[in-house]
């Protein structure tokens, strides 16, 4: 069972009910639950979207798209029904924040789904959880059933004449389904391969209807924003990055865990204060700041604020908020190889640059790691990765290419040393181990 952690620098908004038994509907209601949605019904879509825009909330799945703007893109009039789709297919390596959210506050996700539905004029929302999260799906299913029993979901909710339904859905194991268009394919009972865009989901989405797709944490923020007001929420964060965010800090730190920190909080403080510094007094070697697809950072680069813009300026991404910390013992060649092995395994095969690129990078790095690399391999890896960038339907190709390029650029000498026969770091896996399962 995930342990809850806490630190004085945390600002608890989306996590404020964690550890208080709020999976129980009565407890949730006692803690201001289902108030925001009733206010939303009374005040209407325009008010909701204005508050969401004022909040500066940006997508917590990783792309950082402004949520209020996304909701406003959905056409008011539509012949086809509109849908809300909540992405709980959390699969980005290093990311486990939605895990804690579903466990401790499932009703906030349901209430957020309802609010999004009201904002865009939809009567049906889907909450999609990855297949591995079965015990969390049970928790969400119970929460949905309890909400129906109270008359918060279904026909004539809260006696207001408004109808809204929620359907929960399980995946069955696929990283790619976390991409929004692949998620819609999966929910339509198909292989989870991406769709070409445009048209964007806001216009042609699930079952061909206009669809808003948001990450579970993004959606769970909506009730809090309406309760405290968009402007107050925005002020918690940094410029153009409203509010707070769940950061999952993992790897070689003393106190790994999911912490809610204001947007713009110092990465250095997050590692050294909040997470207690590097495990066993070792030295920091590298940071993968927002899930495995984000370009790696060096120890001298960590004086940066954790928000979408500052991390972008620093040449990396805020991503999914999963900060993975590597100490001095890690072999970057091995880590890069493990990372690309993941993407090679998860590439759905739809687009050739991604399918072939991930495979060739893995093959080449395997050779380098195994001591049989040749001098051109480092350049070849970079060349392959650069040729994947921007050439695929969905961002999986980019997600594989970007970290690879950064590993090679920032730790080039380590790769060259491997080829020359000098292995830096303390390798954990053998090539046989790696190739055995992938």
């Amino acid at each position, binding site marked *: *069972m*995930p*342990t809850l952690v806490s630190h004085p620098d945390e600002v608890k908004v989306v996590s404020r009910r964690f550890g208080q038994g709020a999976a129980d509907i009565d407890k949730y209601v006692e803690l201001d639950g289902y108030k925001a949605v009733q206010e939303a019904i009374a005040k209407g879509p325009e008010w909701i979207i204005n508050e969401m825009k004022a909040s500066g909330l940006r997508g917590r799945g990783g792309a950082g798209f402004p949520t209020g703007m996304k909701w406003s893109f959905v056409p008011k009039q539509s012949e086809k*029904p509109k849908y809300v789709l909540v992405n709980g297919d*959390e*699969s*980005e*390596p*290093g*990311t*486990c924040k*939605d*895990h804690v959210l579903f466990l401790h506050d499932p009703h906030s996700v349901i209430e957020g789904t309802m609010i999004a539905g009201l904002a865009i004029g939809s009567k*049906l929302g889907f909450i999609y959880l*990855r*297949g*591995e*999260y*079965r*015990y969390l799906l*049970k928790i969400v299913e119970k929460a949905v059933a309890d909400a129906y029993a109270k008359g918060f979901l279904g026909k004539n909710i809260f006696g207001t004449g408004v109808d809204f339904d929620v*359907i929960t*859905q*399980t*995946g*069955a*194991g*696929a*990283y790619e389904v976390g991409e929004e268009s692949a998620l819609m394919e*999966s929910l*339509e*009972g*198909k*292989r*989870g391969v991406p769709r070409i865009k445009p048209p964007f989901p806001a216009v042609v989405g699930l*079952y061909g209807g206009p669809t808003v797709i948001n990450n579970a944490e993004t959606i769970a923020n909506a009730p809090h924003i309406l309760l405290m007001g968009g402007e107050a929420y925005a002020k918690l964060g940094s410029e153009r990055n409203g509010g707070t965010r769940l950061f*999952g*800090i*993992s*790897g*070689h730190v003393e106190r*790994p*865990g999911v912490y809610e920190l204001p947007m713009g909080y110092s990465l250095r403080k997050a590692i050294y204060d909040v997470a207690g510094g590097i495990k066993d007094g070792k030295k920091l070697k590298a940071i993968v700041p927002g899930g*495995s697809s984000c370009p790696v950072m060096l120890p001298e680069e960590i004086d940066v604020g954790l928000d979408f813009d500052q991390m972008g300026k620093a040449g990396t991404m805020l991503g999914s908020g*999963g900060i*993975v910390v*590597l100490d001095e013992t*890690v072999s970057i060649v091995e*880590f890069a190889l*493990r*990372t690309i092995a*993941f993407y090679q*395994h*998860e590439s*759905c095969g739809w687009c050739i640059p991604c399918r072939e690129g991930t495979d060739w990078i893995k093959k080449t790095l395997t050779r380098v790691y195994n001591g049989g690399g040749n001098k051109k391999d480092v350049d070849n890896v970079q060349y392959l990765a650069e040729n994947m960038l921007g050439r695929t339907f969905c961002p999986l190709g980019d997600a594989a290419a970007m970290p690879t390029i950064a590993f090679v650029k920032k730790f080039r000498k380590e790769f060259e040393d491997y080829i020359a026969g000098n292995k830096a770091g303390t390798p*954990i*896996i053998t090539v046989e*181990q790696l190739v*055995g*399962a992938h």
Partner: protein
Amino acid sequence: MSEIANTIFSPELAARFDKLVTIYPLRRSALVPMLLYAQDEVGYVSDAVIAEIAERIGLLELDVRNVLSYYSMLRTKPAGKYNVQVCTNISCMLRGGYEILDHCKHKLGIGHKETTSDGVFSLEEVECIGACCWAPAIQINYDFHDDLTPEKVDVLFQMYRDGQGKDVK
């Protein structure tokens, strides 16, 4: 009474499937959950499972096979009663995931995607399971176990052998 005569599923699951195909705007949306829930009951996605699900939704068996081959949790061969899934992705790797995997292999005497001769355990190396902050972590069927050491794994295996393990479905 199930909508399908001679259903291969338990009455409870058949009733659940009868309803499941009706709740979505399109019946086909029930496909992925049905495959997984059927696997939970039958142990794997057998030919009979594929045939019945295809009939329930109104698809060709080929369509069902096409979808099922995409999802990594779905299997077309039996596994052990308890499927031990060891995460070795980056966060787990940094905190001993490979050590846990090696220990499981040694302890159970089986490799990746193999099953013990008594049919109790099977073993699988899996990608990130979303327990990064509590690494290293494994799942036994749907139950998460985190912050593991080889010693804790031994205790877990004994618990499951003794029938004391939690079997979330």
